[in-house]
């Protein structure tokens, strides 16, 4: 089983990296960009017995710093 964990900065937390990307995109001539937020994608290969609660514990204990970040878990069941 695979799981993907998306770690993003909480709304309201200033994202200097996202802002720099935003400026760079505008510098390349792209317009209409209202906001850019950068985050992380972490892909996990897990034993099928791994529960949602286990993955959430991994996020809370290590993968995300919940002071400044939110996380979202996407489970991808292996097709037999």
């Amino acid at each position, binding site marked *: 089983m695979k799981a993907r964990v998306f770690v993003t900065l909480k709304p309201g937390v200033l994202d*200097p990296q996202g802002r720099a990307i935003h400026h760079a995109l505008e510098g390349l001539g792209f317009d209409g960009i209202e906001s850019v937020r950068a985050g992380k994608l972490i892909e996990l290969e897990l034993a099928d017995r791994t529960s949602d609660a286990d993955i959430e514990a991994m996020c809370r204990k*290590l993968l995300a*710093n919940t*002071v*400044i970040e939110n996380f979202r878990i996407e489970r991808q069941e292996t097709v037999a």
Partner: protein
Amino acid sequence: MKAAVIVFPGSNCDRDLAVAIREVSGREPAMVWHGDSELPGGLDLIAIPGGFSYGDYLRSGAMAARSTVMRAVVEAAGKGVPVLGVCNGFQVLTEAGLLPGALMRNAGLSFVCRTVGLKVENSQSIFTNNFAAGSEISIPVAHHDGNYQADADTLARIEGEGRVAFRYTAEVNGSANDIAGLLNDAGNVLGMMPHPERALEKAHGNQDGRRLFEGLLEAVA
């Protein structure tokens, strides 16, 4: 002063910190590897150095905060053993939950490496008793992730409790309330982005950092 300096893979200010402790206290600190599960007994100080522990993987300080030795550090801190975290050490302390908030990428995105002015906000702690309250000192910074952030309630609480030890006198990295150094609620844990061990000798340009170690020695001896 019986001290230990914690060494993680990627620490690079561990020996500077050890020299500072030895110069001021006259006693060689123990260098404790991240994989050790025990600290030497009877410590007067645990120092967590600057550097790039674990290559700053995931987040600065995140891996180091979950290393074996940190369980012993958290336990010792809970018993009142003084803990000083400098630069990456400050990041490790926030990631380990010994200090509130988080240190994010500098607001200007650049690595900042220069001597900065600091205002001593709290001169009552074991780390800052050698400075006059409100005085200004100069200490070098060298970091990419020194932008201190915490939610509004946490900021109000640490300000109200007088836990801001040092504040930048001018904008450096985007830190909330220009926080440069922060104490825990018991006052035995200090995290600071500036490097006091780099302002130790006359050849360093100033000796304001030495005064921190001298004050600490006085307080714990």
